[in-house]
């Protein structure tokens, strides 16, 4: 016995919700922000900056069981110039800090940062002289995913929160004074 979904489409397939707008025959008018937000959120191209154990859980997230590609992140980009989301997974040592900073600076706006795991968020269990105690000392972070390592469901939860941030972001945010001031706090031009 097959269940039919409300709007008459195929059973089991859910369509995304339409943003509010004014509709007529052959046209649909809404605000640019909503359309751009919807397009951006469903096609985030992540840059997996996997350093240690959390990287293996990320590989499991990309695998067939907890497929990350269904959220639009089918194409992993290893080049920062073509990526939207920097996923920092794993411990960042002080030796690696400048490399991370350089990768972040090479990304084009709009860019988001997801810090996966306890080590990237705060140094984790490694309170030592050689580990950077959290990547938010050198780059601004949008969403933190705690765990050691976090389960793939938690990583997907983090991606969904990023998607929410992407959808609701104002188009002028990256040019605003507050954003520039925040970047200056980190020393990024």
């Amino acid at each position: 016995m097959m269940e039919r979904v409300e709007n008459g489409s195929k059973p089991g397939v859910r369509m995304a919700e339409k943003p509010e707008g004014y509709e007529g025959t052959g046209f649909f008018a809404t605000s640019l922000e909503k359309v751009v937000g919807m397009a951006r959120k469903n096609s985030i191209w992540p840059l997996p900056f996997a350093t240690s154990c959390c990287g293996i859980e990320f590989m499991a997230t990309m695998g067939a069981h907890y497929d990350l590609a269904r959220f639009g992140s089918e194409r992993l980009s290893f080049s920062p110039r073509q990526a939207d989301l920097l996923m920092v997974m794993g411990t960042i040592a002080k030796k690696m800090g400048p490399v991370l900073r350089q990768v972040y600076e090479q990304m084009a706006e709009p860019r988001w940062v997801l810090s996966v795991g306890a080590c990237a968020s705060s140094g984790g269990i490694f309170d030592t002289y050689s580990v950077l105690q959290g990547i938010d000392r050198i780059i601004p972070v949008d969403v933190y995913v705690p765990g050691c390592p976090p389960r793939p469901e938690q990583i997907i939860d983090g991606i969904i929160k990023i998607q929410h941030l992407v959808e609701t972001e104002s188009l002028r945010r990256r040019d605003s004074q507050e954003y520039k001031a925040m970047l200056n706090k980190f020393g990024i031009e």
Partner: protein
Amino acid sequence: MEFSAEDKVINTLKEKYEGDVLHIESPYNFLTITLKKERIVEIIKYLYSHPETGFKYLTSIGGVHYPELNQIAVVYQLHNLIANLRVRLKIYLPVENPVTETITSIFAGANWMERETYDFYGVNFIGHPNLKRILNVDDMIIFPMRKEYPLEDQTREDKNDSMFGR
């Protein structure tokens, strides 16, 4: 009288280098010989090529810092794969000037192991092709594994010591 494998090693070593042997013991069935540091490279080469011992596999090189003795020990663990015999050679170096010779001419694998010992303890291996830091940042001036240096990064201000019971 049948000599045990360990006795054979000790006798072969004492045949030529009796004066360098300081102490022999076997904790947990692992032959451990403490030697004088002057001729360690010759001794290892002798143990490598002598048919009675044949220690042709280097398991590890490590350093140990003994603050009460003011000495840094360098521990070489060798393995004879054919006779399945292991030996541990320890030499003690003064902490003010820990200098010894490299064994990269005998074992190519000692290259990075000695660099790691230098990085952590400051032991200077004379004759090493590339003795610079391997794991820590290049501009570090201290040798972090020595006991007097702390584990945590001392420059952070955001940890509240009163909450950690310190």
